[in-house]
């Protein structure tokens, strides 16, 4: 073996290409190999696709009472599966499959929006507290403490009950507000850690403007626990929203289907028509599982301990 070829080989080992591999990229590489992540991601992708394509996929209008004539409270009759209606109808004679498919939209919307709002609120509060410290920090953290001193579902229920006219958006707001303190505290914690870190000190020493320090250095480096949390919150917010619907604080208008309220409403029929609860429950569980799996594997991947 000649020197050059050896060197070349070693160079290649050392250089790893010239483009440079950012931390995110290396985390991604780890993720791609994790079966947990792949399963979770597959579930999420499928779910998002269904949500986006459901208007095309759904065989019928989810709010049209097409099979109403087969419904009878008196005989506890609910339309059975039949040609064109593979899962039958619900207790209003609406196509159950279509409702399940379209229901993914609401669920996705609730999950994503609640998480986004919670994240946004948490980001604002956490950044304020972490960046400004002093009395702002004290005030923000006291607020956060107060919010955290009420168990989360309870808080969500309280907030949801606050709205005079509950609808799908009030559910989102309720679930989102509950997440704010969690995100805020998480972010503040890592912001404070960042604040004390040498690279932030270096940026200050360089004379980088305070705003730029916060937004270019502290924030981006504090985000990974927040992102992990967000993924997990996606799952919990879907479950929480379902719980709110179950408690009757959800969208009163059920012409727009949503899994949580579909589940909540059909529990009374569990023994005679188990499929009415089974399918929405399954959907919720699988989707929540998908997000949880992704969150967990993301947490692992971003964990500096696993970095090599």
């Amino acid at each position: 073996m000649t020197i050059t070829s050896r060197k070349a080989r070693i160079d290649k080992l050392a250089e790893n290409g010239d483009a440079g591999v950012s931390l995110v990229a290396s985390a991604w590489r780890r993720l791609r190999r994790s079966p947990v992540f792949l399963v979770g991601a597959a579930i999420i992708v499928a779910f998002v696709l269904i949500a986006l394509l459901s208007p095309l996929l759904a065989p019928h209008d989810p709010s049209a009472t097409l099979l109403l004539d087969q419904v009878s409270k008196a005989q506890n009759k609910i339309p059975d599966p039949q040609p064109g209606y593979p899962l039958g109808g619900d207790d209003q004679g609406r196509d159950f499959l279509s409702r399940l498919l379209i229901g993914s939209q609401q669920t996705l919307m609730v999950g994503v929006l609640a998480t986004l709002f919670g994240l946004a609120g948490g980001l604002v509060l956490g950044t304020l507290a972490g960046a400004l410290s002093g009395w702002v920090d004290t005030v923000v953290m006291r607020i956060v403490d107060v919010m955290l001193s009420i168990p989360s579902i309870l808080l969500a229920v309280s907030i949801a009950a606050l709205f005079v006219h509950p609808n799908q958006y009030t559910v989102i707001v309720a679930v989102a507000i509950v997440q704010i303190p969690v995100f805020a505290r998480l972010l503040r914690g890592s912001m404070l850690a960042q604040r004390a870190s040498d690279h932030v000190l270096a940026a200050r020493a360089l004379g980088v403007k305070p705003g730029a320090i916060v937004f270019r250095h502290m924030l981006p480096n504090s985000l990974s626990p927040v992102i992990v949390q967000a993924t997990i919150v996606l799952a919990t917010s879907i479950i929480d929203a379902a719980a709110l619907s179950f408690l009757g604080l959800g969208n009163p208008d059920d012409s727009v289907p949503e899994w949580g309220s579909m589940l909540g409403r059909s529990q009374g029929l569990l023994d005679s028509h188990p499929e009415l609860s089974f399918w929405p429950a399954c959907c919720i569980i699988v989707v929540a599982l998908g997000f949880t799996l992704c969150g967990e594997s993301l947490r692992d991947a971003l964990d500096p301990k696993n970095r090599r």
Partner: protein
Amino acid sequence: MSEPLVSVEDVKVHFPIKRGVVLDRTIGYVYAVDGVSLTIQRGETYGLVGESGCGKSTLGRGMLRLVEPTGGRVVFDGTDLSALRGENLRRMRRRMQMVFQDPLSSLDPRQSVESILVEGMRAHELDKGREETGKQLRELLSAVGLPSTALRKYPHEFSGGQRQRIGIARALAVKPDLIIADEPVSALDVSVQAQVVNLLEDLQEQFGLTYLVIAHDLAVVRHISDRVGVMYLGGLVEEAGSDELYAEPLHPYTKALLSAVPVPDPLVEDRRERILLTGDLPSPAAPPTGCRFHTRCPWRQAERCDTERPVLREILGGHRVACHFAEEIRDGKIRPHEVEPVLVHPDEVLIAPDAG
């Protein structure tokens, strides 16, 4: 040459210790830096040594106003830094830079080398167009001995020595006058240390820099410094030219320190006489009264050492020492004696488990 670039006058940095029932109140202070005065001449290298926790880094940061000094003044090139605020202070930062101990944690892991280097330039409007900046960056990299391919990589892809070079390049990018290097080599492998030390020396020559080098390794400090200050528990106990300091340490602490440094030569090691200090460094939150060193000093004398804090006084030309009995010790009039070790509890911290 002997024109002062920075002078530090009685700088104090006291960190409050806070605790309280509903609201925090200050129940004490960590006297991290407690009255240090020194002057660094333009173009020289000033070395600062001392055991860990004695306040070296804090002094360095206080000089740059990265921590707010509780008292005293720092005059940089005629400007009183402590009077500067906001934008003025920010602009002043260009002229004083810092190199850190841990080369990895001092680099933002999410930024490529290029953006790390450009950031400072941008902050001080030194980047003039793409091309010009590109050229500057390449020069900078070659000055610190890195290939230009490094620009697009991320800090975690480099070895320790290379990272330290990036840190140095970052400081150099804004063309500073003063560089404060806080333990620039102590995290590096022995073989790489020398490379960085040499690099620092070369750069000083090339750019006419002034250095404040902070380290706990006396040998390194002595090697690169013109003058060395020895710190103990927040105060400067001795200051001298680096050769004089080694040749004739006057402060008992300096003596002990010098004798404790292992020398890679069995012949020397076998012959050396060591002054072994007993006990540990007292906590800076509760520094001893009088001379801070009296609890461990083998030459301690009754009364005066315990009660009166010695000031830094010039004994020979350029050799200052803070010891009441420096001359007597030098002349052998006072003999060392046994010291009872004093119990020292490191700061006990209340770790409240995070409820979040």
